[in-house]
């Protein structure tokens, strides 16, 4: 991982800034805690002033006095615009089609943006039992598009074949005759670069590399024969303004920034 950004930009800062830019003109984001929180909070201050984060726990329009430590942190509730039940949140808001962008993480992602969050190894006797879907299956099936942020870009997390597909993208759903609402994963943001796809029928393509990273490095870190866009841009490094907002306004207590 080499990137000589100004001010010794950390990996968290880089990923947050890059993800925040992808949220330009988006309205509703379904986000977990951590990097997605940083990215959406920064986007709110920069490219997407009207953005609303909806939390899996039922919080809409949060105005937290402190940066939340979990998606259900008490500071998200006090002063929020609405707190609704989980049947309403998952049924009417998410499955109802009100989410523009869903953020997801995974232990493994494949070239179509299918995700594994269940097991490493066999489901019946796994070498590692992971937490499972949570709301991931629903976020993928019902958001217009999904952004995935992966801290580690490594062939084990970008395998040619998933150990288990917990959360299918639309290609797998359609193959079974089920029509999902959105495009599935459209952006994968890692320390090495950005992969993108438009939707059904398309593999992820490398569209940008982080400063100082080569296309070959990304290919080597990916477990399948990675497609590469005709022109691969270098991601513009975080600006001074972006870093200042992130460090001073979004996460001054370094809850998530490392």
């Amino acid at each position, binding site marked *: 991982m080499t990137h000589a950004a100004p001010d010794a930009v950390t990996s968290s800062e880089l990923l947050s800034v890059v993800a925040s830019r992808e949220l330009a003109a988006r309205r509703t984001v379904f986000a977990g805690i951590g990097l997605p929180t940083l990215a959406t909070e920064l986007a709110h201050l920069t490219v997407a*002033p009207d953005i609303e984060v909806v939390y899996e726990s039922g919080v*809409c329009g949060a105005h937290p006095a402190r940066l939340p430590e979990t998606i259900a942190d008490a500071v998200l*509730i006090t*002063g929020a*615009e609405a707190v*609704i039940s989980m049947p309403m949140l998952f049924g009417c*808001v998410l*499955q109802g089609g*009100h989410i523009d962008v869903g953020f997801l993480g995974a232990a493994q992602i494949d070239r179509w943006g299918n995700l594994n969050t269940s097991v490493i190894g066999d489901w019946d006797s796994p070498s590692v039992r992971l937490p499972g879907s949570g709301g991931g299956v629903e976020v993928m099936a019902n958001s217009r598009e999904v952004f995935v942020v992966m801290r580690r870009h490594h062939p084990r997390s970008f395998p040619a074949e998933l150990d288990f597909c917990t959360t299918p993208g639309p290609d797998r759903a359609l193959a079974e005759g089920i029509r999902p609402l959105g495009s599935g994963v459209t952006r994968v943001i890692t320390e090495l670069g950005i992969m993108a796809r438009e939707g059904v029928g398309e593999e992820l393509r490398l569209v940008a590399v982080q400063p100082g990273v080569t296309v070959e490095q990304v290919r080597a870190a990916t477990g399948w024969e990675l497609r590469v866009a005709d022109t691969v841009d270098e991601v513009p490094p975080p600006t001074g303004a972006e870093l200042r907002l992130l460090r001073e306004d979004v996460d001054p207590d370094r809850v998530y920034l490392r």
Partner: protein
Amino acid sequence: MAPTDRTDKSMSMKAAIAAFVRDGATVCLEGFTHLIPTAAGHEIIRQGRRDLTVVRMTADIVVDQMIAAGCVTRLVSSFVGNSSAGSLGELRRRVESADPAPLAFEEYSHYGMICRYLAGAQRLPFYPLRSYGGSDLPSVNSDLRKVTSPYPGPDGGPEQIYVVPPVNPDVTIIHAQRADRRGNTQIWGLTGVQAEAVYAADKAIVVVEEIVDDEVIRSDPNRTLVPAHAVDAVVRCPRGAHPSFAQGYYDRDNAFYRAWSHISKDPQRLQDWLDEWVRGTADHAEYVDRLGEEFWARLAVGEALSEPVDYGRRL
């Protein structure tokens, strides 16, 4: 974040109806006895909308008025009566003798309508319910269908259940006690099926007694039944639910419910009433003024405040 102009959805009733209710549209008006969006129905009449499909569980006075004004060609409902106060004259003439014109009617039960909203709001192809077995309703409503459960029934054999299809109105209109300018809407007392009816719709208009400061809404986020992301227009229209009531604001005008059975029985008297109170008023404010302060004093209610709850803050 502070509200910006871009998230201020407040507008006049005239503008909201003009923007979101088109001729030929499917329009849902919800509110079960409580918070009936009467003023919105009247503005639809004033603007002369035509060929509407009206979706409403309890088709009551406001629906009878919209039918009489020629706005409605199709009605989807589970109760077509004037509460327990009598009949809807215009609706009965239309259904019983196509006088002065026919009215297409899709008949459901209450829970059938609720399940249609649930399916619409949750983007489901159907919603199952334990109703209709043995009823004649499926013989007059081909949208009441059956599905076989993929799990064994209580006797181990296959189990069938009726389902209803989703309803997705072009616009849903509800009345509420208060909202902020973005559309975060708080309702108390009977909450009916308003939230689901809003989520089922493509667009939503929320008519409120009061537009309040953000801080009021945010002091009690669990009271917000309809979050801003589901709302397209916020219309301030005090007393806009008359003759129904708004819990804590004004009481039900039972006398008008009883009177409507007589007014609507006579087609000419009904049209005269519309001329005077709807087509003859510029807006709901004029309707309210004409009724007069003495009238409204009779519907006034005393105070019964909820005890506050503590949401807490991190120290």
